[in-house]
């Protein structure tokens, strides 16, 4: 049997592996600061210095503007989608010190709650795992972290952790929900005893881990020290059923660390340097099955990293700005660590 070469696709006879499948013109009048897909990848929320939050339906490669939400009085830094079991809910945080929670009711998006408990810009919002209920963590430049819990009938309860980070808190990220002990089917209406935890990163160069005590108060459980400058982002990896916990942190110092904790031993977190970049690293994020870490740096690139055979982190792709497109591939080699 003769093997025939398959007809080549794409320009120059190369197989394009990473393709742009949709472009969404947001018509934001100023810099975009965040863009987030909803749970299913059908809707896109964006926020901008033009003070608006926009929501688009992006199914089937299209773009339909669903909502143009106004309410913030300053640049909006981040948006976050809540789990769909609570309905269509979006949180946004802004330089104007406010956190606004928006909800879709009867087909229209409206402001459903406004949180004004911070004295300075709110930099980061993150919804807790849906198992805990509807809880939002907010990190602010006033150094505090506030936790908003929905208690029903339009009411939100606020807990505040003052001075979580000196100078300011830049990022918050929840740990995945893990039920301690065996998972017995609880009788209906009774919630299993989750131990709620989240991580925060701040201008004190620290990553901190927080835990909810039995009395409902939040306590600082751990300090993770490795960065030599402001921590810009933290991301707690989704759970894949292994006993280890993993957190990624990135900093003004150009470093990205992967922190792991072997839960069997308890509370020892060990950092591994992913890479030292030449510029500030602003944003880290895990893919949904936690096997790829995306890192966004000041050097105009988004790089994708994967853990290889021997526990080393390998860069598998560079997503860059510019013209044209080039084929990508997955390598199993190693990158030189500095």
């Amino acid at each position, binding site marked *: 049997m*003769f093997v*025939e070469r*398959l007809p080549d696709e794409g320009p120059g006879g190369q197989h394009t*592996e990473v393709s*742009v*499948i949709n*472009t*969404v*013109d*947001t018509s934001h009048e100023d*810099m*975009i600061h*965040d*863009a*987030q*897909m909803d*749970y*299913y*990848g*059908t809707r*896109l929320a*964006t926020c901008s210095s033009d003070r608006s939050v926009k929501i688009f339906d992006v*199914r089937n490669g299209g773009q339909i503007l669903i909502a143009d939400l106004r309410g913030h009085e300053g640049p909006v830094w981040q948006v976050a989608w809540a789990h769909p*079991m609570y*309905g269509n809910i979006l949180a946004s945080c802004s*330089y104007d010190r406010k956190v606004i929670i928006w909800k879709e009711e*009867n087909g229209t998006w409206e402001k459903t709650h406004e949180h004004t408990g911070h004295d300075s*810009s709110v930099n980061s919002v993150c919804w807790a795992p849906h198992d805990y209920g509807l809880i939002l963590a907010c990190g602010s430049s006033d150094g505090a972290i506030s936790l908003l819990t929905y208690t029903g009938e339009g009411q939100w309860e606020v807990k505040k952790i003052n001075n979580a980070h000196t100078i300011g808190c830049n990022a918050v990220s929840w740990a995945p929900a893990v039920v301690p002990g065996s998972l017995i089917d609880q009788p*209906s*209406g009774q919630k299993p005893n989750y131990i709620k935890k989240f991580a925060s990163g701040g201008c004190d160069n620290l990553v901190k881990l927080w835990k909810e005590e039995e009395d409902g108060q939040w306590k600082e459980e751990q300090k993770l020290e490795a960065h030599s400058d402001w921590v810009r982002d933290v991301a707690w990896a989704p*759970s*894949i059923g292994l006993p280890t916990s993993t957190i990624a942190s990135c900093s003004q110092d150009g470093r990205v660390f992967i922190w792991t904790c072997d839960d069997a031993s308890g509370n020892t977190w060990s950092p591994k340097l992913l890479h030292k970049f030449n510029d*500030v690293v*602003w944003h880290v994020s*895990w893919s949904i*099955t936690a*096997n790829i870490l*995306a890192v*966004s740096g*000041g050097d105009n690139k*988004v790089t994708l990293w994967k*853990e290889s055979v021997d526990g080393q982190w*390998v*860069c*598998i*792709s*560079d*997503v*860059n*700005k*510019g013209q*044209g497109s*080039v084929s*990508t*591939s*997955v*390598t*199993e*080699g*190693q990158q030189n660590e500095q």
Partner: protein
Amino acid sequence: MEELDGEPTVTLIPGVNSSKKQMCFDWGPGEMLVCETSFNKKEKSETVPGCPVIYIIRKDVDVYSQILRKLFNESHGIFVGLQRIEEELTGKSRKAQLVRVSKNYRSVIRACMEEMHQVAIAAKDPACSRQFSSQVTILVLQGRLDEARQMLSKEADSSPTSAGMCRILGDLMRTMPVLSPGTTQTLTELELKWQHWHEECERHLQDGTFASSPHLESLCKIMLGDEAALLEQKELLNNWYHFLVTRLLYSHPTVKPIDLHFYAQSSLDLFLGGESSPEPLDNILMAAFEFDIHQVIKECSIALSNWWFVAHLTDLLDHCKLLQSHNLYFGSNMREFLLLEYASGLFAHHSLWQLGVDYFDYCPELGRVSLELHIERIPLSTEQKALKVLRICEQRQMTEQVRSICKILAMKAVRNNRLGSALSWSIRAKDAAFATLVSDRFLRDYCERGCFSDLDLIDNLGPAMMLSDRLTFLGKYREFHRLYGEKRFVDAASLLLSLMTSQIAPRSFWMTLLTDALPLLEQKQVIFSAEQTYELMRCLEDLTSGRPVHGEPDAQRLQDDDIETTKVEMLRLALARNLARAIIKEGSLEGS
């Protein structure tokens, strides 16, 4: 330190360009978003206008290819069949099975290739047809000597001058020794015969038998495996591995597998002739000729645009026990790692994800958790799709996912005012809180409209009624209406009363219940006993004395005070009358 196999390659996002800006991004379930931004948060906006466009990018767009879809579907069937092959089968029967699987895969691949070929040909200029001589040459190059001979004999008939030569060449073609299946001929015997035949061809060449026809002479040289002659036909050969096969057919027909890679390498070199360098596909084939499984897998992972081939190949090799595992963090071995990658890619497709489920099932380490993470992200655009997803989760006892999905659907239904649907989803999710919420909505609807929706559902709740108090009340209240409709007044009355006395009915509903009691109080015959009437009176007083009721805001109450007062008066009157009649009835002897 290991050498880097290849630089991580770069994808350039078009249109986003600035030396001062960065890219922010987010993960979607199957894709990524990127857009231009400036992370240096300043309050004042930039004077240089930014790019307001967000790019959604995806790996593995092949999953959307129409032609490949059939390949994915059919190979899925073969894959699942392979996993289920009896482990007890050993030796020859197992080997035969595995070979059959391989052949199935190959035929599916071939079908796909033929389809692609059709598409490619359709695009080509139909006007270019080959000359006769080229056609014969191609046949000879492909070893299809019978067909070549037939064409030559036609040529012989039409052209008497070359008839003689054609016949001789045809004879040579006919007599080339080949290994036919089922003969008792040994390899050595074949080699000997072939040597003689080869020498005969050589003699004809030396004698100049075909001297007057360059075309026929060239054919003879080809059949002698003459490298130069073969290389002259580069265009017809198309690529180096065709060249390899033709070359070996006519020079080393009994070559041993372990020697293949020598000839492969030299064929590659000769064919490329230093003009071009090997391409990724070439590297894969070279590794295959060296029987270096790991290298093949590695090269495929690099060169190919999706995981389909390398995942299925590795799986088959693993079943053949030809694969020694590497230990990888993701997937305890290579096979699982590749299958997980492939299956994850399938989940990006709106219907192919169903194939992915089976692949995850056969990944013992991380398949289940990967499935859990992916299946929750499937948009539940239709009821049918939701049910499909739920069935898959339920079959695998993924109770958390079932619960989560049912809650999502219940919420969606409530938003769209489909209360019956919302109720059945909350029951399926075993979500008491939500069931209470939906039941409240039902009751509110009833108060407003005076009738129930979704009667079928409420009537047939069965044990699910116990999920929440409010739901139980809803079910029982509906039962009350049914009893009333069937004119079983005494039963209806007892039920009504018990709803209040057992505290199952929310206080906010008591007025409605008492009002429901009115027609029963005013029937000709006495329905409520004296004791029951006392109970009702107590409930009424309880209710009226407690106003305003704590924690149960009822705006209506404030507005309709007049109506309420009238109602209460009516009830008191009716109750008093009934009490009187009941006492009389109970105090009298039967028949008097």
